[in-house]
């Protein structure tokens, strides 16, 4: 059982030892990984996924529960350490939600398939505002619905102990709740993101620079307050979206909340 993954520091792109010499990621923890494009975020995930043993370009090593990974341990190596949910992913199988969940559950040898089906739909529907039905076709789901279903599936069926969230947009999915669900199922969650709200949702954030692990911040009280504000803004934007989508309009005479706050806060450009 995985309790802790450690990354032992190697080199950055110039071969200079990276600042962070050891990074421990605990089970049920959320860690954000930030940094500009090309700073080495993907390589870090790749090192973890491949159980690097000073043999990747970064020379990092991975420890599982404080122990090095034996390259001959086929059983461990072939086991999926990392599951992923990303904005780029799509469902491509022409199948109903229900059929596909049972197909996935079967390969994980889950016995009570009916129960897992109900549970996954319940969790997914908790995460998204647009209801998902078991008879819906996977490929017809909206971006938010698909992401919600992917998170629910990773939490309940996939047996990988680490989940990498690669940039999920807030549209149509409650990201805070998604993280709670994943950690609630014992996963360690790595969020690779450029989005400040998502980065501050994590307890800690790792900053990447020039291929190396550069800084490690613990999210402080001010940042948490800011994060709450960002999430409130997101909620308001979501409400505005629904309002406009369902035929609402914004003008001075319309004395509703959308008109009052949102128009002023987000649409009004000060002179």
């Amino acid at each position, binding site marked *: 059982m995985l309790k802790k993954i450690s990354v032992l520091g190697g080199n950055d792109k110039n071969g200079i030892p990276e600042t962070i010499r050891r990074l421990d990621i605990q089970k049920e923890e959320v860690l954000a990984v930030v940094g500009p494009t090309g700073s080495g975020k*993907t390589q870090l*995930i*790749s090192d973890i*996924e*491949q159980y*690097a043993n000073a*043999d*990747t370009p970064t020379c990092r090593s991975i420890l599982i529960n404080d122990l090095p990974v034996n*390259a001959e341990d*086929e059983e461990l*190596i*072939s086991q*999926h350490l990392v*599951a*992923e*949910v*990303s904005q*780029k*992913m*799509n*469902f*491509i*199988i022409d199948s109903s939600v229900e059929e*596909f969940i049972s*197909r*996935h559950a079967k*390969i*994980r040898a889950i016995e009570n398939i009916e129960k897992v089906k109900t549970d996954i739909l319940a969790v997914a529907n908790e995460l998204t505002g647009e209801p998902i039905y078991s008879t819906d076709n996977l490929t017809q789901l909206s971006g938010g619905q*698909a992401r919600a279903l*992917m998170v629910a*599936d*990773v939490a309940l*069926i*996939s047996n*990988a102990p680490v989940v990498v969230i690669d940039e999920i947009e807030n549209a149509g999915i409650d990201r805070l709740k998604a993280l709670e669900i994943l950690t609630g199922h014992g996963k360690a969650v790595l969020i690779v993101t450029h989005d400040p709200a998502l980065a501050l949702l994590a307890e800690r954030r790792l900053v990447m620079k020039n291929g190396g692990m550069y800084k490690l911040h613990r999210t402080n009280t001010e940042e948490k307050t800011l994060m709450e504000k960002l999430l409130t803004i997101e909620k308001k934007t979501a409400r505005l979206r629904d309002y406009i989508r369902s035929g609402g309009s914004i003008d001075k005479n319309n004395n509703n909340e959308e008109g009052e706050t949102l128009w002023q806060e987000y649409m009004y450009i000060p002179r």
Partner: protein
Amino acid sequence: MSLKFVIVAGTPSSGKTSVMLHVIRHILTDKIKVAACKIDCLETTDNIRYGRLGIPIAVGLSDYLCPDHFYVANLEEIWRWAEKQNAELVILETAGLCHRCAPALKDCLSICIIDNLSGLDTPKKVGPMLSTADIIAITKGDMVSQAEREVFHQQVQNINPDARVIAINGLTGRGSLRLKNEIMKSQPLETITGQTLRCSMPAAVCSYCAGEMIVGSTYQMGNIKKVDFGRAE
């Protein structure tokens, strides 16, 4: 002279060359001499891509022949060419056109590359290319859901339970290190002459193989097989 002889096959556009380029880059950092040979049908530009790595590269175009038959008939020549290049490792990439390709040799490491987008039933359809491979690399995982990856992985493993299955991203190279390690673990051969195919090649000796172009039974000779319409599909 001993040589590691690695055979790479896979479905069209699955990312065979992209994956192997990442793997070769890893191998070159260990100062091992690598040569590559690409067998294709009518045209290929993959030699340019391999060539950018600065390694010796040969191309064989089968033209009017079945690329697999062409491949097996040239193995000794490819071996001798690789020897002349002083290579310690040769990567032989085949065309991967019909789903009956069966390029694996008994004592050579055989790699099959297949992508997640090809559909859940594809592993069943591709036959010996996948079922006799030692290692199966699955590409394009970044484009499908985690669940689909896991189901596809299982489909592949069901068809070939003994193969080591590795997920690789052909664009970023993620996962390619494990394939490199598997290649480095494989045993070199002393000679390719006398090696045995793991599965027979698709048979093909009929009048059309010999250039016949007209449709109709009277024009057909040799190895002819007809559709059995009595069989329910």
